[in-house]
């Protein structure tokens, strides 16, 4: 019976989209799948990506966390965050609770704008409201402010919400979900091929992390980048590996994808910014 149950999870998650499932049902299946697959990993540990499932990588990572390379970004970000714009306003004015301890609620569905708003986009909308040009999504200024804001949310639980009174919110979630399971590119992979179906296995010498927890630690300092970068930058990296079409940073496609993926990590503690090799 238990095996049958396991098979069902595997089947539903890896292979087909259960088109009529509600987000809450999706979430239940998603968690149960990874719980079955990695029975010795406590739920709260999934926010550590590959380090939750690979002991050798974990040891190397814990060493680096002693003097985290993203620390400077947090400090710079705090200073930038608190600096007033020329009109006297500042970033804090654009957020609830002055922007402290709020990033666990992002991305959210904006009813007035009829789209998914991520924390990075919210920062640029804030600038726009004060008549200041937007920052590039690769700019250190932007990634540092993100690092600081996320830092003030550490230990708070991921809390992406999909309002039930707006059909378009659910549609955006569904688009994100479809994106995740759709095979694409010359190599015919989907995101789920690597991070659900084959999570825990190795592609060459690289262990594939489970998608559960994929959104809690951003932005991350990546050794490969030599800097702090955003979740969407990672989406582009994986699209390249798939030899698939890339979308723009903060494009509607990636924001919907982030909405789905974050919802799947609901309940996991925020632990950004973090380090990845």
């Amino acid at each position: 019976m238990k095996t049958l149950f396991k098979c069902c999870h595997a089947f539903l998650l890896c292979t087909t989209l259960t088109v009529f499932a509600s987000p809450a049902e999706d979430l239940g299946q998603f968690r149960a799948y990874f719980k079955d697959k990695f029975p010795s990993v406590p739920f709260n540990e999934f926010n550590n990506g590959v380090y939750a499932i690979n002991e050798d990588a974990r040891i190397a990572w814990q060493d680096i966390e002693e003097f985290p390379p993203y620390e400077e970004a947090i400090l710079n970000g705090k200073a930038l965050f608190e600096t007033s714009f020329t009109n006297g306003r500042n970033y804090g004015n654009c957020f609830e609770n002055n922007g402290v301890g709020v990033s666990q609620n992002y991305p959210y569905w904006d009813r007035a704008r009829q789209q998914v708003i991520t924390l990075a986009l919210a920062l640029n909308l804030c600038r726009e409201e004060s008549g200041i040009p937007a920052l590039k999504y690769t700019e250190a200024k932007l990634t540092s402010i993100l690092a600081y804001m996320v830092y003030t949310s550490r230990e708070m639980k991921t809390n992406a919400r999909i309002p039930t009174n707006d059909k378009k919110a659910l549609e955006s979630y569904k688009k994100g979900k479809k994106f995740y399971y759709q095979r694409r590119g010359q190599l015919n992979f989907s995101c789920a091929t690597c991070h659900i179906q084959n999570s825990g296995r190795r592609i060459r010498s690289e262990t594939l992390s489970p998608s559960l927890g994929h959104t809690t630690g951003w932005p991350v300092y990546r050794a490969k980048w030599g800097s702090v970068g955003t979740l969407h930058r990672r989406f582009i990296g994986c699209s390249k590996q798939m030899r698939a079409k890339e979308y723009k940073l903060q494009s509607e496609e990636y924001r919907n994808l982030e909405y789905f993926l974050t919802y799947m990590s609901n309940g996991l503690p925020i632990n950004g910014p973090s380090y990845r090799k």
Partner: protein
Amino acid sequence: MISSYKTMQLTLLSCLLLLACNSAHSGSISKGKSLAFDRSKGNCLACHTIDDGEMAGNIGPPLVNLKMRFSTRDALFKQVWDATTINSKTSMPPFGRNKILSEEEIEHIVEYIWSL
């Protein structure tokens, strides 16, 4: 009725052909190996343990004794050309169908892994 002279001639010819084939064969095997290992070509090691290949992944099964699993070379060719025709849920890329490799390149790779 073929004369004994003709038979001799034919035997000689097929001997020569066999010889030629044999050396083409081993050339193909070594070409196949480098295509299979090359990250920008087959990159089969991303997912399979093969031979003396280093840093192999474990998404797919080790490629050994394929003659036990595939009754013909053609069946093996089909697996590499488009694995989704055999298992629609497979993680293995359709190397031929999606033009990741040319038909000739796949022939070499099949020659190589058939020999393991």
